């Protein structure tokens, strides 16, 4: 069960991550399954969140990421498997004994309480002495830069301020895990960026283990230590942002993370870890992983980033013939949309503004396909 030590005041009054026995992961899911009636919201999932880690659950809506978060919080009961927090078995532990902090998308501040009462709520529930509550609430508000807002009503705060209050309220209890459920999606774009940086700073400073749920891959890539990509109730890939971005293990991940183009290709041969694919008459090497079951000559989809493609004059050797379809001005670059002679459309990211003058819609061009940075998967069934 819970270590009561968590409740004791530490020497410093700043909130900090609760100490869990070293060596235990902050959260461990052993074969957890969740069904809603006939629908399996979360298929058998094995996952470990390390101490102090910032782990993101990323996927489209309905992928099971929120279900997973609710299971960790104790709002849902698992149909199978075990959940551990800080080494303690909590599968059947109610939320109020789990020592977790949660920030919801709409912040869920208590509307009938002041900012200070909101932040102090968890401490009052723990029977912390009044004086200490006041100190810790002050420290928590200072942490989120809301000193002086203690007596305001949540209604009087902007979205960003409400979010800080929600964060302070979750952190002040020194949770063993901080759960964030799409906390930025209600903020406008500029504020979102600033809050992301600030949250990441606070998280790093306190070293609090954080599980972050989002459908925004940019957010996931920029904030996470590791990302869990999910879809249809399954974990598709678990890895660092760079691993996820550059080495997607699965067709879904390759298509979901970042902007990506699909080139029609043909599987040629496998050689150990590497495989050769042909795109028209261009031969390229890709990771063999997903192609191991392909027969020679089978159609494969080759994924390539828009900024990895290049534009050359039509007919140049080693290029794919294509025709410019549209040019879209993006400020720092031009997105050049081109129709392949093979069929299908691709987007090429051309730095600068020169492309606008050089190419007009209808111009035949040659598409330069890079040697590396490609991944290939069998076409969708």
């Amino acid at each position, binding site marked *: 069960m819970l270590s009561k030590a968590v409740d004791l005041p530490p020497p410093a009054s700043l909130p900090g991550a609760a100490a869990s026995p070293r060596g235990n992961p902050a959260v461990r899911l052993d074969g957890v399954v969740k069904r809603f009636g006939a629908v399996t919201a979360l298929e058998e999932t094995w996952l470990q969140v390390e101490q102090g880690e910032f782990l993101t659950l990323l996927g489209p809506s309905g992928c099971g990421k929120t279900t997973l978060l609710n299971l960790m*919080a*104790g*709002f849902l009961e698992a149909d199978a498997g075990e959940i551990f927090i800080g080494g303690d078995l909590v599968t059947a532990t109610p939320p109020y004994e789990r020592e977790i902090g*949660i920030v919801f998308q*709409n912040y869920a501040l208590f509307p009938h309480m002041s900012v200070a009462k909101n932040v102090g709520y968890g401490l009052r*529930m723990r029977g912390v002495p009044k004086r200490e509550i006041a100190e810790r609430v002050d420290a928590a508000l200072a942490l989120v830069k809301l000193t002086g807002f203690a007596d305001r009503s949540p209604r009087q705060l902007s979205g960003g301020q409400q979010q800080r209050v929600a964060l302070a309220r979750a952190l002040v209890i020194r949770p063993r895990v901080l759960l964030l459920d799409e906390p930025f999606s209600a903020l406008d774009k500029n504020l979102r960026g600033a809050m992301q940086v600030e949250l990441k700073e606070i998280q790093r400073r306190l070293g609090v283990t954080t599980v972050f749920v989002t459908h925004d891959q940019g957010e996931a890539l920029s904030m996470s230590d590791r990302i869990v990509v999910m879809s249809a109730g399954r974990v598709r890939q678990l890895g660092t942002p760079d691993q996820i971005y550059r080495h997607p293990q699965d067709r879904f991940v390759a298509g979901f993370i970042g902007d990506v183009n699909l080139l029609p290709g043909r599987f040629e041969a496998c050689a150990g870890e590497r495989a050769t694919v042909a795109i028209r008459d261009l031969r390229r090497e890709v990771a063999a992983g997903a192609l191991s079951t392909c027969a020679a000559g089978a159609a494969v989809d080759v994924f390539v980033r828009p900024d990895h493609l290049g534009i050359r004059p039509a007919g140049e050797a080693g290029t794919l013939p294509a025709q410019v379809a549209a040019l879209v001005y993006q400020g720092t670059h031009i997105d050049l949309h081109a129709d392949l002679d093979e069929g299908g459309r691709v987007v090429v990211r051309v730095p600068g503004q020169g492309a606008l003058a050089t190419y007009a819609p209808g111009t035949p061009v040659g598409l330069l396909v890079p040697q590396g940075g490609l991944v290939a998967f069998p076409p969708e069934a």
Partner: protein
Amino acid sequence: MRRGLSTQILGISGKLLVGLILAFVVLPAFVVTLAAFNDRAILSFPPTKYSTRWFTRALTYRDFQTGLWNSLVVTAWASTIALAVGTGFAIALKRYRFRLKAGLEGVLLSPLIVPHFTIGLGLLVLATGIGAARGFPVVVLTHVIVVLPFVIRSVYISLQNIDERLELAAASLGARPGRVLGTITLPLLAPGLVSGWLFAAILSFNEFTASLFVTGQATQTLPVAMYGYVREFADPTLAAVSVIYIAVTATLLIVANTFLGLGKVLNVEQGR
């Protein structure tokens, strides 16, 4: 911008129509109020000489005194019981899924469809069967049945306006279910409970049809006493009682408005 004559006429007649509708809404109260101050011993309008003697008679008339007291007792019991029972049902209907939920909902809201005299008659027959006819328990029970749908709806709507994530957040912060109820759910539900109680009280205080069946001489409520009076006398005492009625109900609403805001009490405001 200049408007055409026809637009102006339309605008004026529209305003006139709204004015007339509003006038019709307040007209009965207006006429009765004036009639109550008529010195003559018949109910007539407009009065020629003013007096407050019918108020004195209304307040000293024995049947009205017991009727008012009975009404207050029945209203207090009925709306309080209806609030307690209705809140329980509303929470059950809102938060839990169970078999026959639609059936239960139908039964609970059926007093809206079943005529009040049917309810009164049915309970009279039942109460006579067990030898409890015309006692206070039967009168209170009748009123509970009549006002319950309104209480349930009022509380249900308030519950719907409470974000369940507030309760989840409280639970994650270490609040046990009982404390979540006490510190989060009930405080946020309070306006809904007050409005539910108030609706019930006003409806019960004004309930006549069903009461006519289930009350006796000793248990008759004020509307029943008024009905008995008007069958025997035609003086403005009844109008005076009506004015007292309006004053009491208005006071209740004004008090509720002062403490909670009418928008909240009537559940027309979305804001929390």
